């Protein structure tokens, strides 16, 4: 087949065209088109709302990440402050509290008191036996 044959192509018979137009005719009446227009506009509005939510969603995600970063930073700084305070307290206590040797120098009377009556009797018998 060449281009001339295509150009000379006969159209379909009129009754076929009329029947086909009838089959494919869009619904008539202004009401139908108004309803379809409303439906289309509703679809566009939904789509616009969907896009808006997507934008808000991305903002929300960014916000959540920022909030998480702030929380982590706060926790880390709180831990650092706590560790620093602990260190300071330990250093202060090491200076202000008595040493171990001081703590151990208990008076002898107190020691003898702590030994009890049996110990004193034993000491007494030891002394008089000489």
């Amino acid at each position, binding site marked *: 087949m060449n281009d001339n*044959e295509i150009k000379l192509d006969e159209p379909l018979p009129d009754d*076929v065209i009329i*029947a*086909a137009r009838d089959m494919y005719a869009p619904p008539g009446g202004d009401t139908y*088109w108004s309803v379809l*227009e409303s439906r289309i506009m509703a*679809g*566009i509005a939904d789509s*616009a709302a969907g896009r808006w939510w997507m934008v808000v969603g991305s903002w929300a995600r960014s916000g959540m990440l920022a909030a998480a970063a702030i929380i982590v930073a706060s926790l880390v700084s709180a831990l650092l402050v706590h560790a620093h305070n602990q260190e300071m307290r330990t250093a202060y206590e090491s200076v202000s509290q008595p040493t171990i040797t001081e703590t151990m120098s208990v008076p002898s009377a107190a020691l003898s008191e702590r030994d009890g009556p049996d110990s004193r009797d034993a000491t007494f018998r030891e002394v008089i036996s000489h």
Partner: protein
Amino acid sequence: MLVQLHAKRAYAVARAIVTVHEDAEDAVQEAFVRAYQALDRFNLDQAFGPWLNRIVANAALDLARRRKVRTTDELHESLAGAFRDPGEADELKRRLGEALAQLPERMRSVLVLHDIEGFAHSEIGKTLGIPEGTARSDLHHARQRLRGMLRDLRND
């Protein structure tokens, strides 16, 4: 308003491809949503109608692909029966519906857009994304096949 201005033409394009009225409505709605979303990419130097028609055709083709599960019998019935007057047995419409359903999708779209909706070949080419020559060739073959399928009816 843009929707009001272009809805009928958009419906005609969609209907030429999906063949069923309800699917054409869905395709038109989907196309307007797509057009709205792509509006920032629309070149103001070009005409809006052909740009929208192309989007409608793509939406209708997508829908037609999703509807491929529809059996041939269902397609015949939808074409021949959707707008048939139930009180009148219209043999020509029934046979025409069956014949159109047997045409390949693109051929049928070209035939409907040209012979029923009055689109020019160049317009069909832009709408369906095919060369103008292909639209001419498709129209020729579609008419030829249709004549063949309706021959016995016309000899009655």
